[in-house]
């Protein structure tokens, strides 16, 4: 682990499993954080970061390979075969090859990170991920100097994936990041949730998590990582370039073509919950805004 980013939460704050379903206990734990001595703003930000229940996180998903309904992935993803699993690392790297998840993670510590998760459809969750920084994996792969982007690809198992049979999108699902985004300490490769291995519908066995971008950038169940010198194609951009850009940073000031991004609904609040204002870069502006200095985010949405 490189310790380029320090989690505001410590091991002591990891929610015990028995409390996972008990929101009040979690709230109490989060409120106690302020006393542990983080900077005031960080602590204040963390106060509101109450992870959603395991049930919320694993029954309300977009994973179009398993259907377009939010509960479809939870119903259908059991068909995903995750063992054996092999990830091809190729392109402009010193150590290309096919790796198992264990080989990729070898020598790295798994950390827990509690991140906001903002879907492009204007809803949000808070998720306690387990995983490593993508940067550590890229360093092990040995990114060559010409490498400017990283491309990812999701597994395709047509016989197991109802959405692939229906051609909802042009599968395999592909995503990409600029190298500085990929190397950013917030960017993770996650392998777990609430301390358990990722459930299939959440992108087992290994997925990307980029907390300041809309959820569809956080590509699931990856089988390929390619370092390239040009901006890679991305699935939603291919499907509808007018609505989905390459960057897709969470930005309350740039609306989706068909709906507002200024506010969102927090999952799990019930039907009478108020909409919440969406934060620039999903609340991670202090950490990532500098990556986009001088860029017009209205054009590069």
């Amino acid at each position, binding site marked *: 682990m490189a310790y380029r980013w320090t989690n505001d939460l410590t091991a002591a704050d990891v929610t015990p499993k028995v409390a996972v379903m008990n929101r009040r206990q979690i709230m109490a734990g989060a409120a106690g954080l302020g006393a542990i001595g983080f900077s005031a703003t960080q602590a204040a930000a963390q106060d509101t970061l109450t992870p*959603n229940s395991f*049930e*919320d996180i694993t*029954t*309300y998903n977009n994973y*179009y390979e398993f259907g*377009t309904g*939010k*509960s479809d992935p939870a119903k259908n993803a059991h068909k995903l075969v995750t063992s054996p699993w092999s990830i091809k690392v190729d392109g402009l790297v010193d150590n290309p090859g096919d790796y198992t998840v264990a080989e990729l993670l070898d020598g790295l510590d798994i950390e827990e990170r509690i991140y906001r998760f903002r879907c492009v*459809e204007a*809803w949000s969750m808070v998720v306690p991920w387990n995983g490593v920084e993508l940067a550590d994996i890229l360093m092990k792969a040995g990114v060559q100097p010409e490498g400017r982007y990283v491309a990812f690809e999701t597994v395709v198992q047509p016989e197991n994936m109802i959405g692939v049979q*229906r*051609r*909802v*999108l042009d599968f395999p699902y592909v995503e990409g990041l600029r190298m500085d985004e990929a190397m950013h300490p917030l960017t993770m490769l996650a392998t777990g949730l609430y301390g358990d291995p990722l459930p299939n519908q959440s992108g087992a066995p290994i997925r990307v998590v980029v907390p300041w971008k809309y959820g569809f950038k956080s590509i699931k169940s990856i089988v390929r990582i390619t370092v390239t010198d040009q901006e890679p194609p991305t699935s939603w951009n291919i*499907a509808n370039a007018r609505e989905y850009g390459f960057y897709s940073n969470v930005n309350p000031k740039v*609306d989706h073509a*068909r*709906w*507002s991004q200024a*506010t969102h*609904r927090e*999952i*799990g609040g*019930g*039907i*009478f919950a*108020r*909409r919440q204002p969406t934060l620039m870069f999903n609340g991670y502006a202090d950490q990532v805004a500098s990556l986009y200095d001088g860029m017009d985010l209205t054009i590069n949405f």
Partner: protein
Amino acid sequence: MTAANRINGALRKIPAWPIYWGVAAWVAWTFYQAASGLAGGPEPINWLEREYGALGLKLLIAGLLITPLRTWTGINLIKFRRAIGVTTFFLILAHFLVWAVLDVQTFARVWTEIVKRKYVTIGMAAFVLMIPLVMTSNNRSIRKMGPLIWRKLHRLTYPVVVLAGIHYLWLVKGFQIEPIAYMTVISGILVARLAWIRPKSA
């Protein structure tokens, strides 16, 4: 025609009022399920919106199938059409209210959405076009307007169902089968309505 006659004879004994109570009870039950977390999953508002909208669209189509059904099979469901039409309006009203009050929440945002988002504009237009229809769905209006003008006004149901179908088609992400299936049925109804000359008895 004997089979159709027998069915029509049986239908004569069934009143239309259970449609009103049935749909009202379903709306209440569905709302209760969403509010209590019994159904709808972690984000019940979206589920509720879609449940109301989807049944509304189904009933719109059902109402428009009554005449072709009579023409082709002789089965006459016309006595249920008003109940279907009126409950459709109230379903879509519930659909609109869930969206406006529970989902979008402020008047300013509701207005912005209606003006700015085309799929909302289209859905709203369909809803507004239904208002004169529900207001004239009574015997007094038919007498006052005369059947010809009344029938002409109620042809607005066709633009309503087309707008509703586009509204659904437009709000989903990616290539999805359901809205396309609805649009196909709606197109079929339109083609049938335009192509075929109704018998004089109608």
